[in-house]
């Protein structure tokens, strides 16, 4: 019979101490010769220890003491004999309470220092963000002003072009009419000449439009440049803010470590709390 095949599935029950005596004996004999089963058992045992630790907090002496007091309170109401609270429990509860109070003081102190550190870092972040916002705002204002100026130039340019073209066309038309009145022969070609003037005026208008477009393009370029400036400033300020936040996070981490260290010390202190000696060698 293959013992390993039989024993291996029983290892977890063995670790839980849930086998019969015969089964335990069988597992233990096999464990002596099987490295694989030894390793697997060690894993099961450490997993179970983890589970046990996670599921079973120990009853602190203070809680046990309060249980005695609670029962005595009930018995006292009925005037029944009270329970005798063990002296060792009272001493242990007192020592643990003292250690807890001291540790709590240390933790409060560490937390205060940590809060100061975190607060200062937070303030720095806020300051940096404020500075960044102000700087980006300035750039935006500048870019906005430039855009407005270019828009105004475009409108002026358009109005001027229309006025010039209209004026020239009116003067030229008047000349053609005047010449037609003076010389009836010229009146024959007047419509043609007027049409030519109209085309010229159109060309002038088109030239004006080109100028307006060029001015618009200039404006667009200026706006784009302004936006780039604003964006670059935003990135720069964002970077500074991020750096400042990283510094703050670093401080918070340090602060947390300080508190954790203090808590760890406190827990050790409470766990190792010993009743004080009464002078006669008795705890």
């Amino acid at each position: 019979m293959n013992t390993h095949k039989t024993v291996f599935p029983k290892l977890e029950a063995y670790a839980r101490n849930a086998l019969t005596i015969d089964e335990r004996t069988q597992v233990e004999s096999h464990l002596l010769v099987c490295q694989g089963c030894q390793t697997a058992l060690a894993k099961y045992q450490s997993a179970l220890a983890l589970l046990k630790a996670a599921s079973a907090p120990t009853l602190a002496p203070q809680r046990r003491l309060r249980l005695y007091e609670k029962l005595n309170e009930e018995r006292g109401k009925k005037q029944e004999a009270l329970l005798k609270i063990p002296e060792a429990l009272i001493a242990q509860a007192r020592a643990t309470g003292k250690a807890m109070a001291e540790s709590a003081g240390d933790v409060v102190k560490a937390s205060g220092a940590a809060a100061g550190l975190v607060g200062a870092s937070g303030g720095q972040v806020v300051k940096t963000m404020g500075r960044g916002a102000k700087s980006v705002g300035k750039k935006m204002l500048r870019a906005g002003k430039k855009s407005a100026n270019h828009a105004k130039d475009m409108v002026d340019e358009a109005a001027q072009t229309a006025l010039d073209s209209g004026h020239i066309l009116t003067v030229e038309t008047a000349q053609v009419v005047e010449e037609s009145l003076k010389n009836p022969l010229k009146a024959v070609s007047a419509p043609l000449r007027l049409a030519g003037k109209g085309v010229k005026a159109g060309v002038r208008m088109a030239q004006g439009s080109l100028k307006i477009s060029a001015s618009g393009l200039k404006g667009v370029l200026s706006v784009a440049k302004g936006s780039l400036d604003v964006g670059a400033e935003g990135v720069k300020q964002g970077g500074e803010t991020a750096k400042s936040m990283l510094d703050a996070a670093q401080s918070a981490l340090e602060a947390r470590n300080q508190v954790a260290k203090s808590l760890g010390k406190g827990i050790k202190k409470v766990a190792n709390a010993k009743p004080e000696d009464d002078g006669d060698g008795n705890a």
Partner: protein
Amino acid sequence: MESSEQELLTLLQQNDPRGYEILIEEYADFVFRAAYRVTQNEQDAEDVLQESFLLVYRNAGSFRGDSKFSSWLYRIASNTALDLLRRRKRKEGEDVSFDDADEQDEPFDELADGNASQPEDALLQTESLDLVREALESMPEKLRSAYLLFMVDGLSAPEVAAELNIQLSAAKLRIHRAKLFMAEYFAQVKVEEK
């Protein structure tokens, strides 16, 4: 019932203070642990501990000795803890049924026999006490009680059934579902870590 349990019960039924001193020294940790398994909170577990001992003090005469004294005590502690949670949930307007395991719809002949599966396979993958604690806190109470009696206290499935006063099939199913819960919990954590 064992003779030491019988002696203790006699002292309690006679309302002898020594009986209660023994009760505290020998069973307070056990009751606190049982209460903590339900409440997952040390302060609540202490309240349940005090309430359970007061119940024993008021009702020691009513214990007939049909089951083990420790089983009776365990039931008092877990029922008191469940009452505390129900009261709290009712106050918060939540569902208070605790019917988190439908125990009718799965075959369970192979479950929780100790040999059929390897329950800590999921546990073996972790070394973090905090993670195990979180998993247990997230597990439905019914499953957690059965699982810990089986895994930590080393009770067999029939013993878990007796301790929780439920059918053997229900005990096996709860243990099986608890194992699946742990496996899924750790698998999920692994995925989130990636």
